[in-house]
């Protein structure tokens, strides 16, 4: 019962985020064109443009996420053990077998994406395959499959693209605002004023975007996936010791970005090496110790 209500809430949230994105972009362009005295055609263009991005993110976010992560698809023959593990757990969970991707990275981590269970993808790093035992791997895979089953992957992939898009632009504007503003004093004041205005708008937007991600990717979601994983494998200790191993590995995942960090089973930045000041706001994973403690008490 719990899972099914989770599914519909995720579907609804995805729509909300897609609509919010269009409203956001169009509003900003509207403010921009009013300040410049431009016509409404620019706003119309923005509406169409953001609409396309929004719908595109629904259909292609998984592919974008995968290409950002540098993962490669594998067939059954390439890694029989991994393939069988995934296939068996899918049978136990009653979901179709997803496509399986491997990322060439020594840092053990994993994520799932795709808009529904039929288009799902589970990706793991080579580091994960090398360092985990079979029961631990089963734990991690079932955690990812739970995200697929709950439609977390749809919401998270759309969030990754749309909110990530806003966050990246905000970061860009913030930088030009802080570091580029003082240099050209000769510019006329109205252009600079407009530039300041945009900068301020995005400065406000960026934390809002971060909060949106946090709303979408609440801690509850990770805990729920952990719990469903334990239910699927009937062996919470497997996932618990896998999380322990993942947490104790010191180096971050190479291809992880602010936009995709929340997709991974554990924070891929490893607490350091954050890419900007705002990255702190994107801390979406509950503390590992807490997750392990809960799994051990099951």
């Amino acid at each position: 019962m719990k899972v099914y209500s989770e599914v519909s809430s995720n579907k609804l949230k995805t729509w909300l985020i897609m609509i919010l994105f269009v409203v956001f972009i169009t509003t900003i362009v509207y403010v921009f064109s009013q300040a410049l005295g431009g016509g409404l055609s620019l706003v119309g263009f923005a509406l169409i443009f953001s609409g396309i991005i929004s719908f595109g993110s629904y259909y292609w976010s998984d592919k974008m996420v995968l290409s950002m992560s540098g993962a490669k698809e594998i067939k059954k023959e390439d890694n029989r053990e991994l393939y069988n593990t995934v296939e068996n757990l899918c049978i136990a969970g009653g979901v179709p077998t997803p496509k399986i991707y491997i990322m060439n990275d020594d840092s053990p981590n994993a994520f799932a994406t795709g808009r529904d269970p039929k288009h799902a993808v589970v990706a793991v790093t080579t580091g994960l395959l090398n360092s985990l035992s079979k029961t631990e791997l089963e734990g991690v895979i079932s955690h990812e499959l739970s995200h697929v089953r709950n439609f977390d992957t749809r919401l998270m992939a759309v969030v990754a693209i749309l909110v990530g898009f806003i966050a990246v632009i905000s970061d860009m504007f913030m930088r030009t605002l802080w570091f580029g503003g003082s240099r050209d004093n000769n510019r006329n004041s109205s252009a600079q004023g407009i530039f300041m205005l945009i900068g301020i708008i995005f400065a406000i937007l960026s934390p809002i975007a971060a909060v949106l991600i946090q709303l979408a990717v609440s801690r509850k979601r990770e805990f729920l996936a952990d719990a469903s994983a334990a239910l699927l494998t009937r062996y919470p200790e497997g996932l618990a010791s896998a999380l322990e191993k993942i947490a104790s590995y010191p180096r971050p995942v190479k291809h992880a970005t602010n936009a995709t960090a929340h997709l991974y089973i554990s924070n891929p930045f490893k607490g350091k090496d954050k890419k900007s000041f705002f990255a702190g706001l994107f801390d979406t994973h509950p503390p590992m110790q807490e997750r392990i403690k809960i799994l051990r008490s099951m």
Partner: protein
Amino acid sequence: MIYAVIVIALVLLFLWFLYNGLITAKLRVNEALSQIDVQLKRRADLIPNLIETVKGYAKHEKDLFEKVTQERSALVSAKGMAEKSEANNQLSQTLKSIFAVAEAYPDLKASQNFMELQTELSDTENKIAYSRQFYNSSVLDYNTKIKVFPNVFLAQLLNFKDAEFFGADAKDKEKVEVKF
């Protein structure tokens, strides 16, 4: 008058959702059942191959071949959950003895064909176990749904029946004795 209409509408709406919930649960049980069947069929399909391969190396284990062949056809023709799980469990036992017999034939054990069949069969066995887990949890969900209040009235009215669990191997459940 208007209140009566609202109440009736609400009751109908409630019954509608209740009915859909029950049907969904029932369909999920059927789907889970067909998944088990897929795996059982896959197992049955592998067995003639296995017999052929083993025959090439161990001709005089005739009784064993006959037993396996019989049990295979029993599995293929089995109807209903209880019969299926019974046939499947018996086949599991006999397969175990085939693999035990194979220990005595080094050539057989080393043959590529036999090794592949062994992995395939053990993978199928795992898959049967996993699909059984899914089936049984769907059955539990469905059986609970048709028994709790107030679903039980509608379920009895429409003659929803309990679904059968797919039993585990009775011999697997026995305690393992370790002797030194």
